[in-house]
């Protein structure tokens, strides 16, 4: 298939996923930059995709790696500035929930963020393990630790 056509289809199909990965790592001001960076990376990497894994797994892997290295490159993690999702501004209750979610996730480290994001996206342990490059058992252990951490954080 034509590379450009394939890419356009891929972006169309997975833009929500890419947006949510960026949401977890970026601050309000940087969300668009992260989104663009991920798209560029996907565009560059698409010719190397060899169907060895599921397309979704590959998308998560590239998006997460790009966001993590972008955070490292910029050397700043904005933990305070909330993402201003203008499309939910009208619903105060929803906005409150999403703000709370953002604040909690942002207190996790880069690796924990990746695991919790994949779990929230209902990826199975095997897929999470293959995306982040750890064993299935390790995923379970890490998720338990994150669960503990979140409980402590929400009690603070």
């Amino acid at each position, binding site marked *: 298939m034509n590379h*450009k*056509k394939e*890419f*356009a289809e891929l*972006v169309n199909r997975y*833009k*929500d996923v890419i*947006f*949510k990965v960026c*949401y977890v790592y970026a601050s309000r001001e940087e969300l*668009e*930059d992260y*989104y*663009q960076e991920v*798209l*560029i990376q996907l*565009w560059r990497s698409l010719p190397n995709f060899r169907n060895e894994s599921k397309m979704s797994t590959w998308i998560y892997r590239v998006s997460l790696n790009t966001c993590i290295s972008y955070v490292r490159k910029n050397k700043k993690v904005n933990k305070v500035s909330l993402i201003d*999702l203008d*499309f*939910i501004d009208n619903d105060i209750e*929803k906005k409150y*929930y*999403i703000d*709370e*979610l953002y604040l*909690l996730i942002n207190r996790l480290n880069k690796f924990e963020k990746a695991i*919790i994001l994949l*779990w*929230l*996206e209902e990826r199975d342990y095997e897929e999470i393990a293959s995306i982040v490059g750890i064993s299935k058992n390790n995923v379970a252990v890490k*998720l338990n630790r*994150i*669960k503990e951490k*979140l*409980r402590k*954080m*929400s009690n603070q």
Partner: protein
Amino acid sequence: MELDELKEKWNILSEEVANHKIVTQEIIDKSLKKKVRTVVTDGQYALGFMFILMIGLLLFFFFNDFPYRNFAIIIIVICMLYGIWGFYEMSRLSKIISPMLNICEMENCLIRYKRQTKNAYMFSFLVILPSFFVWDVLVERSNGMPLLYSILKNAIFVAIIISSSRYNRRKMDEIEEGFKEYKEFMKE
């Protein structure tokens, strides 16, 4: 908070994102424009800082008796005139950097900015630094200091200007790369 509670909230976000039309082109557009604006604004701040520094130096030389004072004042005045021209060019540029511009117009802004900064660095290397060096040698020689002292002092200024020029070029290259990629996949 339990993970299940977190999941509920995540589902709300997923729903909202799914209902919202993510216009990829718009996002990339905004991101590129923001980068150009940041580079131009940084340039304006740097120019403003240099101008204030020059005013400070001018006042210093004006109210203090210094060897070859007039020579120093002439160099500073030349720098300030160049700075005023820079401000004028920058203000023209900042007027056209508006969110309403399309990507091609933004790219033109960047090209103009690049040309201006190149001229500014050339001016620094060909006029300001040699003049300052000559003045510094004259002053230090009259104080009985060796030439090497002036050379070392000026080498620091050269290093600062070179690193700032490299930083600027890197930033602009990044944006240009962004424009290139953008055009390439928007062709489709």
